[in-house]
């Protein structure tokens, strides 16, 4: 919308007596372009519970079994069959709730959510809409890339247990759907967040953290490619200061990349739509990974009324703590929330905080260590075996060098041929300045090739030891100074860069073995004192 001009007033100039008009730029018909856009994202994450059997039936819960072999009569909704709750699923749910710092409800209830779909044999899903397993938690996570690093907190609205549906394979040609109920009835934890995320990067960083947490406590294997972790995103945009916009739901995002891309695309799509005078519809969309765009999923009809109803075949679920468990007279096995709390292992955030404190490391470095599976164990093992080594150096070298070499050789840390003991010794050599930083990189490469040779031996063999002897270095420096008097005078005139030139020449004269720090110091001293 181009700004147009509008006449405001005219007046006569007192000097030249000519008439002048003053104009004002007409304001654009909407203020849209002036205020910045804000996007708001909330997530609903479905995590398949890592149990042997399903949520309400004893059929096996395993990925990729032969068609319809992991289906009980209850899963296929045969008349007269009834749900029986899996204790393992409840324990997993409670453990997850505690890991996400939620309040676990002592009493929770199950509901039926009704809708018709071929992969839902009963015509309803058993879920926990009214009184879920846990409410009000939070997760601390970091968003990081090359240039920035930010820590954020996301709030969890609730965690509920519910059934997964079966799978349909659509045959477009024959116009049929083939239904496999193996997955039908598998336990899911639905983790609902507040709309706390600002964009795709933010949301995907959170999902990564959630994955790490769930994998640490082993309640979900989070293999998004197998569908054991699926993300639905609710996305809306609005202008800063104005009310929230209409949201769309993008369903079934099954990789971290998809989460990021889909949300970014959707935000962009909504902004463009609104800037062109359109309206965002409250609809469900899916993400087409071929074209990296969100597309409408269901028909553009009014949202279904799920007609929630309490599940009559499941009386309320009672959970206990160490106090209330004493009042239970029944011999039935009960779930004690406090017992489960004891079983909670250190979570990624706990580990980050501990590493920060214990080793005085920076948050950014600690984040990388925790981010990469196995790296913390490697690091701590190195520190254990070489307690006097600089933790900072160790972590730095792991992050900046070791990871790179592993990547190049397509190895994981678990298959790293360099033993932690040897790694520690390498860092010791670096720490004591027996070798330079660049040499240590070369030694690391050698250690990969020959893991059985100790780093000290490699250094000796290759004659890579740094010269740190002050007398030798002084001699070298003096020789350089004698050979380049012009450079000295240029330095003395204030051109400090010639110090580096002199130092470099000395380094070359030393066959690159000189300890650069000491060499520089000596050169400076000589120049200043001469």
């Amino acid at each position, binding site marked *: 919308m181009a700004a147009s001009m509008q006449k405001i007033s005219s007046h006569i100039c007192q000097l030249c007596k000519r008439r002048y008009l003053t104009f004002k730029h007409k304001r654009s018909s909407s203020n849209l372009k002036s205020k910045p856009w804000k996007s708001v994202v909330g997530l609903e994450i479905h995590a398949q519970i890592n149990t*042997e059997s399903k949520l309400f039936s*004893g059929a096996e819960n395993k990925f990729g079994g032969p068609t*319809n072999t992991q*289906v009980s009569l209850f899963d296929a909704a045969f008349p007269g069959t009834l749900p029986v709750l899996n204790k*393992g699923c409840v324990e997993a749910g409670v453990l997850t709730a505690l890991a996400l710092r939620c309040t676990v409800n002592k009493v929770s209830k199950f509901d039926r959510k009704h809708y018709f779909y071929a992969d839902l044999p009963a015509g309803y899903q058993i879920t926990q809409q009214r009184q879920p397993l846990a409410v009000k938690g939070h997760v601390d996570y970091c968003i990081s890339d090359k240039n920035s690093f930010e820590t954020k907190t996301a709030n969890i609205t609730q965690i509920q247990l519910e059934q997964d549906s079966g799978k349909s394979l659509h045959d477009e040609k024959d116009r049929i759907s083939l239904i496999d109920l193996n997955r039908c009835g598998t336990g899911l934890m639905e983790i609902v967040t507040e709309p706390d995320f600002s964009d795709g990067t933010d949301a995907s960083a959170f999902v990564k953290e959630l994955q790490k947490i769930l994998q640490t406590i082993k309640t979900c294997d989070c293999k998004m490619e197998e569908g054991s972790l699926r993300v639905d995103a609710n996305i809306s945009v609005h202008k800063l200061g104005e009310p929230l916009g209409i949201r769309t739901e993008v369903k079934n995002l099954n990789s971290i990349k998809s989460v990021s891309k889909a949300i970014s695309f959707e935000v962009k799509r909504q902004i463009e739509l609104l800037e062109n005078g359109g309206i965002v519809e409250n609809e469900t969309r899916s993400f087409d990974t071929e074209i990296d765009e969100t597309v409408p999923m269901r028909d553009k009809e009014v949202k279904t009324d799920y007609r929630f109803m309490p599940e009559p075949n499941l009386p309320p679920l*009672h959970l206990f703590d160490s106090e209330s468990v004493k009042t239970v007279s029944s011999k039935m096995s009960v779930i004690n929330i406090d017992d489960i709390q004891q079983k909670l292992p250190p979570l990624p955030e706990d580990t980050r905080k501990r590493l920060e404190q214990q080793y005085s490391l920076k948050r950014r470095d600690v984040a990388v260590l925790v981010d990469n599976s196995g790296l913390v164990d490697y690091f701590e093992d190195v520190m254990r075996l070489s307690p006097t080594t600089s933790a900072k150096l160790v972590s730095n070298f792991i992050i900046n060098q070791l990871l790179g070499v592993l990547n190049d050789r397509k190895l994981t840390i678990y298959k790293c041929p360099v033993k932690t003991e040897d790694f520690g010794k390498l860092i010791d050599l670096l720490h004591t300045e027996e070798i330079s930083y660049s040499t240590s990189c070369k030694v690391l490469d050698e250690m990969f090739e020959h893991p059985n040779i100790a780093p000290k031996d490699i250094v000796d063999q290759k004659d890579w030891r740094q010269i740190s002897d002050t007398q030798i270095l002084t001699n070298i420096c003096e020789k350089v100074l004698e050979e380049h008097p012009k450079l000295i005078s240029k330095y003395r005139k204030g051109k400090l860069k010639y110090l580096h030139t002199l130092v470099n020449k000395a380094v070359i004269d030393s066959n690159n073995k000189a300890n650069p720090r000491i060499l520089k110091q000596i050169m400076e001293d000589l120049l200043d004192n001469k």
Partner: protein
Amino acid sequence: MSLTKLTCRLWLQRVSRIKKGFCSKVPKTPIWEELDNTKIPNVPQIDQEMINHLERVSLVEFNNQAGIERLSKAIESANKLHMVNTDGIEPMESVLEDRMLYLREDKVTDGKCKQEVLSNAVKTIEDYFVAPPGNIPLKTKERDYGSNSNGS
């Protein structure tokens, strides 16, 4: 009930009691309250939008006007519930609400019965159940809800 009638009835009851020489605890007359119809909420008109909506979520048709009238009657009966004062009363979902829900140990005890699971399906293809394509809304049919044909 008028005062005269009430007095007569009571007198008759007393007489029969004296005759028997024994007081039966079974009441002689019906006790049910007459409901004040003016206090019962009206049954809302069931318009075409509601008909379509209900048929879509139920995947079942009303068929004819008689069906809609039966629904109205059911709502009328349900509306009488509003004569009961339920302030502060917690809804009762299950008579077993105070009992502990039985929890099953996490073991594989079921499944592996593909033949049985498929045994009653009219159509299967290679161990899969077969369904037509989904997510296509029902075609709205021309239905005559003005006629009063027999429930069929």
